């Protein structure tokens, strides 16, 4: 991986997909001092480096709004650096990291650590997500104003739901004071109980405790109702069931300010992936049924789901080499997120425009990440270049993450990010 430092950059002949103007045309993109600008008159261009993007798709920089970096505290699973390198290989120019580190990101100290580290790495943008509750304990509010001041772009107790409805309701209100979005891991944890995979025919066949789909749906219903009642916003993380999609769709129709994301595994795999007790396919929410996968794909198409996020959750080989009961929840996803999404494009389920909306424009809007998510004049020059025709195989060796817990190892894909541009800086991706 190497970088160029450039003041002026011209990306030539790419197919530029811009969600703001809803245009998908072959054109050039001109960048000056890290900002996308209208093309100046020919004679005035001097000292411009040119990047040939013939046969490439030029997307606004992809944003993964749901990533678990394990630093501080669990550097053997992932560091900020290794996570960012995986993100670059996956075509991301921005990632948002969840606060369930050790210590938890519920204070200025941790928030500043993350941003300082990110700055010193000088790779891609890191936007920390702060905790809703102190220490993720679900018993008192974290110092949310302080978190905002130390750079948090959103709040979440992701990994666990905020069980106490009063705490969640007041968190939505208090966070609104600071204009911070709240991302909810919506779940009734008592209903999840000791479940490890989706409750259904497969959990019966395998003889393991199941997680009922209603554990998620009851949580989603509560949180959209809280948002509706209090007139606040809520973003639902990792939607995995058809029922959750229905609840969110109805909530949106009734005017509730709810947005949501799903993850590539929920539209790519079903609970069948667990038939051989493969712990690399164990995550929470769990892989669901064919019917759920269809509903998720339909919702990506019709707009009920706003964003695709990886929920990248690295765990070491030793941790995942275990029984379904013992292995931790979570799979890595930074490098497979875009390729799996492109499968939907090739399957004629969604358009490239929708890819750009789901993976860049909408996350930028939901998290208010400033002038990101578009390639129009004046936007920050965060750009992802994708060779959508390139056929390749996802191997363990190609994984940049310190953890290798992916059920997609060995799979063939069509389409890969070739380079990302962050603040006008070109970084080779693959």
């Amino acid at each position, binding site marked *: 991986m190497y970088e160029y430092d450039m003041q002026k950059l011209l990306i030539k002949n790419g197919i530029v997909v811009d969600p703001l103007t809803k245009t998908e045309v072959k054109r050039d993109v001109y960048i000056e001092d890290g900002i996308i600008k209208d093309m100046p008159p020919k004679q005035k261009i001097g000292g411009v480096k040119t990047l040939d993007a013939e046969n490439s798709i030029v997307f606004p920089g992809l944003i993964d709004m749901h990533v678990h970096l394990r630093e501080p505290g669990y550097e053997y699973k992932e560091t900020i650096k290794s996570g960012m390198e995986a993100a670059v290989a996956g075509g991301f120019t921005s990632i948002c990291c969840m606060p369930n580190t050790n210590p938890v990101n519920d204070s200025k100290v941790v928030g500043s650590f993350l941003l300082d580290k990110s700055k010193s790495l000088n790779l891609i943008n890191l936007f920390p997500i702060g905790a809703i509750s*102190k220490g993720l304990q679900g018993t*008192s*509010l*974290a*110092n*949310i*104003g*302080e978190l905002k001041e130390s750079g948090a772009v959103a709040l979440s107790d992701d990994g666990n739901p905020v069980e*106490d409805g*009063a*705490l969640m309701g*007041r*968190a939505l*209100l*208090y966070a*609104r*004071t600071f204009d911070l979005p709240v991302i909810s891991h919506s779940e009734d944890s008592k209903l999840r109980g000791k479940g490890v995979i989706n409750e259904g025919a497969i959990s019966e066949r395998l003889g393991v405790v199941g997680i009922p789909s209603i554990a998620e749906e009851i949580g989603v219903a509560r949180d959209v109702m809280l948002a509706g009642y*209090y*007139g*606040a916003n809520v973003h639902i993380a990792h939607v995995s069931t058809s029922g959750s999609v229905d609840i969110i769709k109805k909530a949106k129709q009734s005017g509730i300010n709810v947005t949501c994301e799903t993850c590539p595994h929920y539209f790519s795999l079903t609970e069948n992936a667990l038939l051989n007790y493969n712990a690399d396919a164990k995550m929470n929410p769990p892989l669901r049924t064919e019917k759920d996968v269809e509903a998720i794909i339909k919702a990506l198409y019709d707009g009920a789901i706003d964003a695709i996020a990886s929920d990248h959750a690295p765990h070491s080989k030793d941790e995942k080499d275990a029984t379904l009961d013992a292995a931790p929840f979570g799979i890595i996803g930074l490098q497979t997120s875009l390729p799996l999404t492109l499968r939907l494009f090739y399957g004629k389920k969604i358009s490239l425009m929708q890819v750009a909306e789901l993976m860049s424009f909408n996350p930028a809007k939901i998290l208010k990440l400033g002038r990101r998510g578009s390639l129009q004049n004046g936007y920050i020059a965060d750009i992802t270049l994708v060779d959508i025709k390139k056929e390749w195989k996802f191997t363990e060796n190609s994984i940049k993450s310190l953890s290798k817990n992916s059920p997609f190892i060995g799979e063939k894909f069509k389409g890969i990010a070739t380079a990302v541009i962050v603040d006008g800086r070109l970084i080779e991706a693959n």
Partner: protein
Amino acid sequence: MSFNKKDLISIKDLSASDINYFIETAKEFKKISLKDIKKVPTLRGKTVVNIFYEPSTRTRSSFEIAQKRMSADSLSIAVSQSSVTKGESLKDTILNLEAMKPDAFVLRHSESGAAHFVSKWTKASVINAGDGINEHPTQCLLDIMTVIEEKKDVGSLKVAIIGDIYHSRVARSDIYGFSKLGADVYLYAPHSLLPRLIELKNVKIARNMEEAVKDADVIIMLRIQKERASYYFIPSIEEYRNFFQLTPELLSTASKRVMVLHPGPVNRDVEIAGSIINGGKTCIFKQVENGVAIRMACLYILLSYKK
């Protein structure tokens, strides 16, 4: 002018001219407190019972002094040494005291609606000295009086009320009182402590501290209780101090002749910088002084009401 109600339970029961009548009357009674002999025979032969179910410094002593200066016979029931500790209900307490033929009750209670409840069981006048999170009408009247003494026309003022509005009986009374007189009332607090469903003309929710304070003619700061963090209303007192305190810098953006009020007790350097109080930039003690006059006026007006 006259006032033809038995009780003073809620500011909502008063018209704008009622409010002015109470304040004009209080201005007259204020003179008594400035005399060498601070006593008039106005309420001679009248019996007033003060029942404070909650601790109070200002309100209780203010009512007691008002009663003494007007020559009423008054007694204050120490709730902690009364049969309330044996489990006697509020209704029975009032019915028994009622049998002793008092002319007025002054009641402070932790439950909203307590004064309203008591008024149903007595022929005596009831003055609400604070009921739960509901209302504190005499505090509102003394706040308005303090403002009117310096600013002639309340209707043209921007009044900012900042702090734990949701749990504040002072805020609830002040919001109704000041808006009834036509002031533009701006409310600000963490959204978890704002009333969300208030529907009053002239009342706005400010977007931030800066908007609330900017060019304000009157700023009413409210106390935040530590316990609010336990019920998730705020994260901590430290964070409250950092984001919701009236600081000298903020205050400098208010109107040049801004009046800063606080009903007390104050948490210095939590909701308001101690230096603002130390620098004599608040009206806190003027409020307390006017409190006696307002309570004299309330007793006088209610006890002159012919049942």
